[in-house]
């Protein structure tokens, strides 16, 4: 019997989007000096709002506000800073649905994910670091904040990346100037309102919207003591170069090309789920996505047929529909990049497969896609696609799996699927990656340090380790 799920859209009435937004500087929304830009719903290409663009002068105002606030904020007892952060965490929980809907509208991710993954993690992150604010002396990294943190975040998890940046910075006594991504500024601006509701002292959090030049102004500002960036390795490189010779402390969370390794003794059904979560979660717009499936040759055929069957059940469409598994690609530019690399995959001789999957007429969409017959030398096995595209390779022995997994300039994450514990640990030891998910994938928690090896960046976010980026080294 065919069982069709009727549309089950989450109501967008819960969020009130203003026609235009200013910059959030010194506790107030102010006009920007640049030419305002539009942010669109990638699922419909409808304009959601007009957003101010911060110029170098605007960024300077924001940094000045943050510098001024630093004196006040860093002088507060940790327990008082903690209470502000707890308060913010609570308001996030209270307004979680509103934030989730806004995130899905602006980003294109399924409401299921913004509601069940992003928002709970955002609130949890603030709760977690709130608790550290008055316990820094026990963490082992000293207790002296750095000053003003310039933070630039990507569009794939707009509010979650904001939380990863702002919560530890504030807990340690720093103030921040944060630039959200150009295509997803709205939840950051709603967060600014939350800061107002929480009575956070003006200037502790400043949000400057804009494109790459705004980001460069934040990173390059001479009065910024700390640079935190999440985004592409390409931009990360530029930032690393630009801070050379300065005293700015830097943490970078960059790209990845993770191997998800499935052994012949794996729990197959869960491995299939892990592969799906690994690459199709958030449309594959995940730096730690399991974009390279390394499957043991002896079970490759069986696993692929299970995987394909499973992919046929994925529901692509309206991000606000509660049953949507795959939402929209965040932007036309990103869609073009995914298409370009996928075409390269075909041209290089890999076989391309997607389930029958009608795409909506408007908006930016890409079907879940699997490439088989992929070699290590193919571009789709080496370059980060940042989309719902899986490259499948095979291996014969554990040593070969490790060799192939590590054969990349990246080193953010890896997955291992085996029911044999000693083999799992053997693999985990040898994989050059900052996060190893064994018999699971794409799990995140505020208590758990996250970050890369090699060209995936440096520094850790989350956990006790996450404090180190925002405190002066003990000398």
């Amino acid at each position, binding site marked *: 019997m065919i*069982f069709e*799920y*009727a549309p089950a859209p989450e109501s967008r009435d819960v969020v009130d989007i203003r026609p235009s937004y200013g910059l959030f500087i010194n506790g107030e929304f102010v006009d920007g000096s640049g030419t305002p830009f539009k942010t669109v719903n990638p699922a419909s290409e409808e304009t959601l709002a007009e957003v101010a663009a911060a110029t170098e002068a605007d960024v300077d105002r924001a940094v000045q506000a943050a510098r001024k606030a630093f004196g006040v904020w860093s002088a507060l007892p940790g327990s008082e800073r903690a209470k502000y952060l707890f308060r913010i965490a609570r308001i996030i929980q209270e307004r979680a649905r509103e934030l989730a809907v806004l995130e899905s509208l602006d980003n294109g991710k399924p409401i299921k994910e913004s509601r069940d993954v992003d928002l709970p993690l955002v609130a949890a992150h603030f709760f977690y670091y709130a608790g550290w604010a008055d316990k820094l002396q026990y963490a082992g990294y000293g207790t002296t904040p750095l000053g003003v943190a310039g933070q630039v975040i990507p569009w794939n998890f707009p509010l979650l990346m904001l939380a990863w940046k702002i919560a530890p910075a504030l807990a340690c006594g720093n103030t921040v100037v944060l630039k959200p991504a150009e295509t997803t500024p709205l939840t950051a601006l709603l967060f600014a309102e939350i800061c107002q509701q929480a009575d956070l002292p003006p200037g502790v959090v400043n949000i400057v919207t804009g494109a790459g030049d705004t980001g460069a102004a934040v990173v390059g500002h001479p009065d910024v003591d700390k640079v935190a960036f999440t985004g592409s390795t390409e931009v990360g490189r530029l930032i690393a170069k630009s801070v050379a010779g300065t005293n700015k402390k830097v943490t970078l969370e960059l790209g990845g090309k993770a191997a998800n390794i499935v052994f012949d003794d794996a729990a197959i059904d*869960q491995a299939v*789920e892990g592969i799906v979560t690994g690459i199709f979660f958030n449309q594959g717009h995940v730096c730690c996505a399991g974009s390279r499936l390394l499957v043991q040759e002896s079970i490759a055929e069986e696993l692929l047929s299970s995987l394909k069957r499973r992919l046929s059940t994925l529901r692509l469409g309206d991000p606000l529909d509660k049953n949507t598994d795959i939402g929209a690609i965040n932007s036309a530019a990103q869609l073009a990049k995914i298409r370009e690399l996928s075409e390269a995959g075909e041209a290089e001789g890999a076989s391309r497969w997607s389930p029958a999957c009608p795409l909506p007429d408007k908006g930016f969409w890409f079907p879940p896609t699997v490439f088989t017959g992929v070699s290590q030398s193919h571009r789709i096995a080496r370059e980060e696609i940042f989309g719902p595209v899986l490259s499948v390779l095979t291996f014969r022995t554990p040593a070969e799996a490790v060799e192939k997994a590590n054969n990349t300039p990246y080193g953010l994450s890896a997955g291992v699927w085996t029911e044999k514990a000693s083999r799992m640990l053997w693999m985990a030891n040898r994989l050059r990656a900052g996060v190893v998910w064994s018999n*699971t994938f794409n799990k995140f928690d505020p208590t758990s340090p996250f970050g890369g090896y090699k060209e995936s960046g440096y520094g850790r976010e989350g956990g006790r380790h996450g404090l180190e980026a925002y405190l002066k080294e003990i000398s």
Partner: protein
Amino acid sequence: MSIPTASSNASLRASLHGLPGVDRVGADARAAGLGTRSIKTSAKRQAIDMAISMVDLTTLEGADTRGKVRAMCAKAVHPDPTDPTVPKVAAVCVYPDLVAEARDVVGSSGVKVASVATAFPSGRSSLEVKVADTAMAVAAGADEIDMVIDRGAFLSGDYLKVFEEIQAIKEACGEAHLKVILETGELATYDNVRRASWLAMMAGGDFIKTSTGKVQPAATLPVTLVMLEAVRDFRDREGRMVGVKPAGGIRTTKDAIKMLVLVNETAGPDWLDPDWFRLGASSVLNDLLMQRQKLTTGRYAGPDYFTLD
């Protein structure tokens, strides 16, 4: 995996322990994820009617009487006497001594009569008694037999005993369909649930069923998920379709709809049919009827408007 000759515990063990493992946390997460599907409006109406038509309306109490069974059977045929568009349920499920009574009421309505047998619910008796129990129920007119496996034998690794018992009961069933109750609440691990599912299918069971309803936990979503994966894989490898029946603990429309979503996205639409999927339950029927009425009238329903039988 091909069907082994089942000549020894060793060969059965090799087959069953050669099945892929089940990671409990992953299976729980997948079931919970499917549990968040939002089934609304037309889909909900379809799901409610589908669920009603899949109910095995059950009474398995020491206090069951002829009167109680007759009333339940009447309700099985016409779940809502005020609304003829409500489908009949799939079957009634009773103890063997009440099969004749049930048969009498359901008649040729199309509602099947199922009977538990084999020293239900513990299964602690000799094979002779179990076969006799089964034969009696079949002779009294049962269309379906819900047997219990010997969990003690299974847990002690005596797979051959379980296998041969199922074969013997299958033979005693004759034309009647055999549902094999695994009593998953006593099997402790999902690995065991998968192995027991395969053992039951290899021995010839027509259905695999989670629970007797006398042991907790019973028909949880993840256990049902694992069993649905088993019947899916079994058809892939052996070409034979086996049905699935979660039983015990399904009380609300929401519970029932989650089960249907699980079937739809795990074993697939082929199983969305009363011939291949059943819900062993009793109280869920009234909740389904109340929800159905709400969809029709637009008003929330009250229990006083539905019969208690």
